[in-house]
């Protein structure tokens, strides 16, 4: 956006472009190489569309061997590499570099094996998130992380950003569900980390790789846990006359010892847009709406929903409605999953992803309202309330450079607020280029330096996805 800068492109690389591409083709003859400007244009941005950059070239390998050959070549020639899955990053994680190639894993989309006894699947990194569940749903199993972009986003991208989703309150995020990866290091060396068993030997490299935004190596295969689906699941809707009451109800439900499988929050603007867009059956005369979903047998579900209804009664709910049918449940979720798209129909929006401790929820929503009013923007809030992961959508006009600049400042102020309240900058979207400079708000120089040393340990020359995650000054010596 307005204030974004990327590392200065290496002029020598730009000048040698023709020769580099010729040699790259030779190094990985079966990979698809996109060199023309029009083809590269498709890859110039990700889901953070305000930032664009035309890469040196785009290369699409279809095997680990080719990824290894490409990285080996780039390492030898000191060419930067930006890994990309489906390009759904909301933080600019896959934003290209002018002097770097984009290495796109989308052709590596094979499901390699499924084992329902050991309850694991091995997939190539370019497989979409929902393809795993689709492959095993017939046997009653599923892959738990379910980011909103799950139809499009790839498992490799999920690993890079440690993706979550609506159901991670119960089932955890990607790092809890990945057992192993095949990782190609920048040198081209291939290492297998973890595997089909629950624990891997040695240091927990999987903890480092999940959420490393493609900066430590390129993941080409992933072994994931499969879980048996519950007998049934059903949501209920709880409507309140204030955000405060809804927020307090969330804390009360969890405090009472119930951890629903999902606990989603929408404020009035979000409710209206979604209802208008999908017709999900949301009440329109409330200020805040909770979607609470529980799982189990019919009796278990009834018992839990009744209990949640009793807890909610202390907060003067305007609406308490249990879903009565599978169709109604599907509609309720369709509204939630379509929320970002629905708001996108209405206006450009800048989606934040800060996290706060649950007890700070009412205060956070109040302050976010103030901050947005100060910058003269409307805001809609839709988020995973159970884990305090906020998604304020700041509505603005992307074609107005002044608004663009203002919305960035507004977003940064909201994220600083999240950190001040004891939370963090990003719960599931990643730092990317977007929040790079804000890292200092959350971490000390020493903390950041320690993280940078890990980057250096895996990629000493900082060729993999540089210019992301860390403030631009680069590595410490």
């Amino acid at each position, binding site marked *: 956006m307005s204030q974004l800068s990327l590392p200065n492109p290496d002029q020598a690389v730009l000048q040698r472009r023709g020769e580099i591409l010729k040699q790259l083709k030779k190094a990985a003859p079966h990979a698809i190489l996109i060199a023309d400007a029009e083809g590269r244009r498709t890859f110039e941005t990700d889901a953070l569309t305000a930032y664009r950059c035309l890469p040196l070239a785009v290369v699409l390998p279809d095997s680990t061997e080719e990824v290894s050959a490409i990285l080996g070549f780039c390492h030898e020639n000191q060419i930067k590499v930006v890994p990309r899955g489906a390009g759904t990053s909301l933080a600019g994680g896959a934003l290209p570099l002018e002097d770097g190639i984009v290495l796109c894993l989308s052709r590596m989309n094979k499901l390699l094996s499924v*084992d*329902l*006894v*050991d*309850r*694991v699947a091995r997939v190539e990194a370019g497989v979409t998130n929902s393809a795993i569940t689709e492959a095993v749903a017939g046997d*009653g199993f599923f892959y738990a992380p379910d980011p909103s972009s799950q139809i499009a986003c790839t498992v490799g991208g999920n690993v890079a950003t440690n993706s*979550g989703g609506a159901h991670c*309150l119960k089932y*955890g995020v990607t*790092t809890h569900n990945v057992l192993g990866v095949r990782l190609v290091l920048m040198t081209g060396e*291939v*290492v297998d*980390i973890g*595997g*089909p*068993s*629950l*624990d*891997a*030997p*040695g*240091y*927990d*490299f999987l*903890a480092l790789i999940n959420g*490393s935004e493609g900066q430590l190596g390129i993941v080409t295969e992933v072994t994931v846990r499969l879980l*048996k689906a519950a007998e049934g699941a059903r949501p209920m809707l709880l409507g309140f006359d204030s955000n405060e009451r809804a927020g307090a109800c969330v*804390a*009360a439900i*969890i405090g009472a*010892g119930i*951890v629903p499988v999902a606990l989603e929050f929408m404020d009035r603007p979000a409710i209206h847009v979604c209802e208008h867009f999908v017709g999900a059956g949301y009440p329109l005369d409330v200020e805040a709406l909770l979607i609470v979903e529980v799982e189990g*047998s019919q*009796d*278990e579900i009834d*018992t839990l929903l009744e209990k949640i209804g009793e807890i909610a009664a202390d907060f003067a709910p305007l609406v308490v409605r249990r879903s009565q049918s599978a169709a109604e449940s599907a509609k309720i979720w369709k509204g939630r999953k379509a929320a970002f798209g629905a708001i996108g129909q209405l206006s450009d929006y800048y989606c934040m992803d800060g*996290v*706060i*401790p*649950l007890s700070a929820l009412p205060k956070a929503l109040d302050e976010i309202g103030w901050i947005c009013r100060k910058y003269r923007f409307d805001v809609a809030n839709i988020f995973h309330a159970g884990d305090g*992961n906020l998604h304020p959508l700041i509505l603005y006009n992307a074609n107005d450079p002044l608004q663009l600049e203002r919305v960035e400042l507004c977003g940064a102020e909201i994220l600083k607020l999240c950190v001040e309240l*004891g939370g*963090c900058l990003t*719960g599931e979207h*990643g*730092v990317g280029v977007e*929040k790079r400079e804000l890292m200092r708000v*959350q*971490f*000390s120089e020493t*903390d950041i330096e*320690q*993280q940078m*040393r*890990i*980057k250096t*340990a*895996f990629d000493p020359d900082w060729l993999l996805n540089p210019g992301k*995650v860390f403030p631009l000054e680069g590595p410490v010596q």
Partner: protein
Amino acid sequence: MTGHMRVGFHAPDTVEELAYLVAEAADTRTPLEVMGHGTKREVGRPVRHGAVLSTENLVGVPIYEPSELVLVALAGTPVAQLERLLAENDQEFPFEPLDLGPVLGFGPGQSTIGGLIVTNFSGSRRILRGSVRDHVLGVQAVNGRGETIRAGGRVMKNVTGYDLGRALAGSWGTLAVMTEVALKVLPAQREMRTVLCFGLADPNGVEALCLAHGTPFEVSGTVHMHAALAERLSDQEIANNGAAVTAIRVENFPASARYRSSRLKQMLQAYAPALELDTLRSRAFWDDVRRLKMFQQSGRPLWRISTSPSVAAKLVSSLARKIDVDVLYDWSGGLIWLETPPISDAGAVELRRTLAEFGGHATLIRAEASARAGIDVFQPLDAGLMALTASVKKAFDPVGILNPGRMYAGI
């Protein structure tokens, strides 16, 4: 060298003091043995150290928010103390901490939370709820430069920067000295039911466990053990049965747990479920498992093997043809606890040869120091992973003063 680190035992009262000591040790290249209460100090390769650094005086709970499911504790706080605090609020550690104290010659409940995290030993509920590491939300630690670092935070979801906190889990104090940890906790399970089958051969026992995990009843613990081990359980009716035991646990609110156990029994009919334990007896049974009661008396070498359930029984039967072993299968066989005869290598050669054939890895949990000095206590890594291990060690502890050699030579 710029000074002299005092040899002996250091147990600083503050993080600042601890960081100062580590910085001093780094300056003087003094290797430190890092520990909490030291209940697991006999695990791993023998460490050559110039001084001992304990976190035992860093005790306290800066934050506990039951309605946020978050607990922040200083590293030296005893796990037992934290479990009491959680219980007062009807909460618990979801991963059901494994208590190795009793098999290593200590009493139960003595380990510190820091020691639990850096060794990452989860109990039977790990398969449903996740490992110790999975519940780490953030840490404060002192790296080998003597710098105090923070990573992660205290909220449920956090992808801000690299996940260094979880990476410290299972690092055995070789990367940094953990000083504080934020953990996710969960409501305690109110009702517990355990369905038992007796006398099943290993393949059938593991098959029954896998079947149970393939049901939607949120099975939260599955073990199968040989008769020789079952005899050592506290529950006399089970101990006196004289048969192998296959046990499956379900939990939830009372009506649900009862429903789940009755459905499980129907589905396991082919394995003849013969006994169902109520909450009280279940707790005693699973407490035995989490304290490895069946391995407490013998003092023989004890191995922890991580593998796939589908190969577990074959792996054990192949090994049993060569050495005499007593076996407990946990996590439907994904984890195997195995006692070997007190031979000089603790059975390492045969075990690792068998693992190479079937897949999986092994850690030697209990053995004489002489045995531990001569073999790989932790699973040897291939060259690529070993090189990464060395790089990451260097990134945290450049001069190699924190528990040097504890996991691997040179690390």
